[in-house]
């Protein structure tokens, strides 16, 4: 889960890398031109920056940790989304972080001990640095995808409320019935939701995702905690009611923020691939829904979300790499056909319980996921070619 949490950030970061490769000659901008280098001196109590204004475009942050604790340094948007980060900077060591930034306000944060909100400095990127222009069709794709993500959140909340209410009513059967359905919108747009970092661990953490020192009863919240109560403990307590309320609070937060997520064509493409990775690592193995065995519902939703990204990017991708989009069409169709074997009709989200899916069938599903995910990993390149 955590790896994917950063997915959109990472994907977008590779876009920067690409732009940077394009501008190899601009290397001197950062290394030569002092105005694009921000020196950050971190101590256990301070985070000093050499300048608070720099030109937009490529910038380089030179970090020196003069403190006694391991630290990490972030460049953040005003709303705390991460532009770029560097962790594990040991005492007495130096690190470089680079980024490509648009004009606007940012913050640089040091986190001594790699904990807490960090010590922050407001900084501003000024003027019009070089940021590549992109195909207007891709801007349209991003806009549509943003709308899609918002729709998914909007439609999920009422379903989640049905689920939460059933939990609060102590109606185990009704809650079980509403469980998988309440997750579909989330699963379709998971990489976007996860890009915020803080929401995903609250709502979608699995038992094994808890860190050492975290308490199973106190710190574990969200869908899977309730899943365990319903299917394994087979009873609902006051704590479960609290958890149900908390889930709605957290999902409401998601619904409010999802429209502001940083989305780029490449993050859409790589987000699609990551949805398949989610399937490959969590659903195919049956780990995601280990109590309810509703993995195939998540599976289907992940594929649908990936397909949405793909369909939006396809007009550009097919121009750049027709063979790739042909292959993707084939493999999406093949995987969907295979999934249809596990539900009664194509509109239903009632899928075969995953504990009833045998080893050979799981391999078949896994093979189909590999067959799709491998070409899907090339979509981002086809979008930016």
């Amino acid at each position, binding site marked *: 889960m955590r790896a994917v*949490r950063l997915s959109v950030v990472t994907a*977008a970061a590779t876009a920067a890398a690409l732009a940077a490769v394009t501008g190899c000659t601009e290397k001197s901008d*950062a290394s030569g031109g002092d105005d694009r280098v921000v020196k950050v001196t971190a101590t256990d109590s301070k985070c000093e920056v050499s300048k608070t204004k720099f030109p937009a475009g490529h910038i380089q942050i030179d970090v020196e940790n003069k403190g006694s604790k391991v630290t990490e340094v972030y460049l953040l948007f005003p709303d705390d989304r991460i*532009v770029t980060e560097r962790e594990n900077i040991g005492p007495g060591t130096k690190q470089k972080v680079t980024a490509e930034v648009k004009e606007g306000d940012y913050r640089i944060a040091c986190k001594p001990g790699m904990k807490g909100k960090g010590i922050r400095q407001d900084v501003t990127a000024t003027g019009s640095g070089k940021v590549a222009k992109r195909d207007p069709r891709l801007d349209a794709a991003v806009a549509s995808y943003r709308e899609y993500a918002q729709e998914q959140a909007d439609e999920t909340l009422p379903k989640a409320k049905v689920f939460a209410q059933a939990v609060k009513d102590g109606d185990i059967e009704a809650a079980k019935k509403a469980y998988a359905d309440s997750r579909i919108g989330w699963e379709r747009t998971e990489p976007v939701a996860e890009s915020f970092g803080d929401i995903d661990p609250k709502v979608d953490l699995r038992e094994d995702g808890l860190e050492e020192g975290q308490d199973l009863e106190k710190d574990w919240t969200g869908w899977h905690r309730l899943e365990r109560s319903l299917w394994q403990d087979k009873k609902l307590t006051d704590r479960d009611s609290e958890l149900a309320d908390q889930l709605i609070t957290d999902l409401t937060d998601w619904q409010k923020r999802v429209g502001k997520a940083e989305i*780029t064509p490449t993050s859409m493409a790589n987000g699609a691939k990551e949805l398949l990775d989610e399937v490959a690592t969590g659903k195919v193995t049956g780990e995601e829904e280990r109590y309810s065995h509703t993995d195939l519902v998540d599976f289907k939703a992940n594929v649908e979300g990936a397909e949405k990204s793909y369909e939006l990017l396809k007009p550009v991708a097919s121009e750049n790499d027709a063979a790739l989009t042909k292959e993707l069409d084939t493999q999406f169709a093949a995987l969907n056909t295979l999934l249809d074997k596990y539900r009664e009709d194509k509109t239903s989200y009632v899928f075969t319980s995953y504990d009833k899916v045998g080893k050979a069938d799981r391999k078949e599903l896994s093979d189909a996921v590999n*067959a799709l995910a491998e070409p899907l990993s090339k979509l981002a390149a086809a979008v930016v070619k």
Partner: protein
Amino acid sequence: MTDTTNTTNTTDTTSAGEGAETGGTRGADSRAPSRRSLIGWGGAGLALGAAAAGGAVAMARNGDDAEPTAAASGAAIAFHGTNQAGIATPVQDRLHFAAFDVKTTDRAAFVQLLKDWTEAARRMTAGHAVGEGAYGGLAEAPPDDTGEALGLKPSRLTLTIGFGPSLFDRFDLADRRPEALVELPKFAGDNLDGNRSGGDLCVQACADDPQVAVHAIRNLARIGFGKVVIRWSQLGFGKTSSTTPEAQTPRNLMGFKDGTRNIAGTETDRLKKFVWVEEKDGPAWMVGGSYLVARRIRMNIETWDRTSLQEQEDIFGRDKGEGAPVGKAKERDKPFLKAMKPDAHVRLAHPDTNAGATLLRRGYSFTDGTDGLGRLDAGLFFLAYQRDVRKGFIPVQRSLAADALNEYIQHVGSAVFAVPPGVRDKDDWWGRALFSKDSKVSQSSTNSKEA
């Protein structure tokens, strides 16, 4: 937080520098940018709505086209030739063997895969990275090559392809299935696991460095996604037979030398007689090829180790120290079979007991951890090449039904493959003669043209 952040940030220059050195040993090209200069921005942070312009991409490719430096001996084994490498060529130390199932029903797509595999094999056996390399390409896309063999020598990597009987049920190939490619009969004591048996095709990767062999299979599997899937695979170490006339035959995990009279790569006559398919054997597309039998033979290591030395030696029909046949002094001395117990392994496996049946053996030891009962899951991954399975493995294995060794071994996996002839040149590809519609364009006609 998580380690994914590494990708968003600049690596410190020390490791970048090492990367450049490592890349260079695999034939760095002056046209390629140094790894260091790429990393300067290559690991950069976030683009705000960035999309790249196209032009510079080609410049950033990993130029990996130069010949491998003739570094160290045994650098590379020629990929092109009349026969596939990896059969009579000197046996390497390590193995990664993979059997695949075909998923596609599209003949053209499958043929394209064979061509893509051939090209990748051509590059990897020469010590090059697959496609456009493991780094320096488009930052947006995963690299063509997975990269774990960068900086390693070619390590005498050989890649050998074979086609299983079930392949001929596909793509209208039924009338091209060789008669000699029979399904193996059930042998006494077989306890075969379907998940470790069969396969539409196989690739045998042998190399002196296990990472090189694993890299090869991994990259072929990756190229194959959507068309073929791995059905099962086996890692092997410690070659148990030799195709070079060495002084010593390698030992198996029982500590014994076996197959001391294996066919050497230099024994042209015996290879011709026992290994390579000839025109009269048919079909034409197999001329210069061979038939491969692969058997996963589990050893009951613990009970074997508790067996007295005398019994161990009686079972094999050799002494443990030198490996000499009963009553002889040296391992390669001609065995006197009648001096051995009637159920001794050497006596039953010997050509003289089997109407001259002779195999080219290329087996490896394997250890796949433990079996849940605290016993080593270990044994011999037996690979044998022959001109006709019906005259090679089958009679020998039948004869071994009475083998005293059977108390200590069990055959748990089994597969048989038709191994086509070698890839002739850069325009040729694995299985071309089999898949060419015009039967005149067979491998043999190519042979005679070039002869």
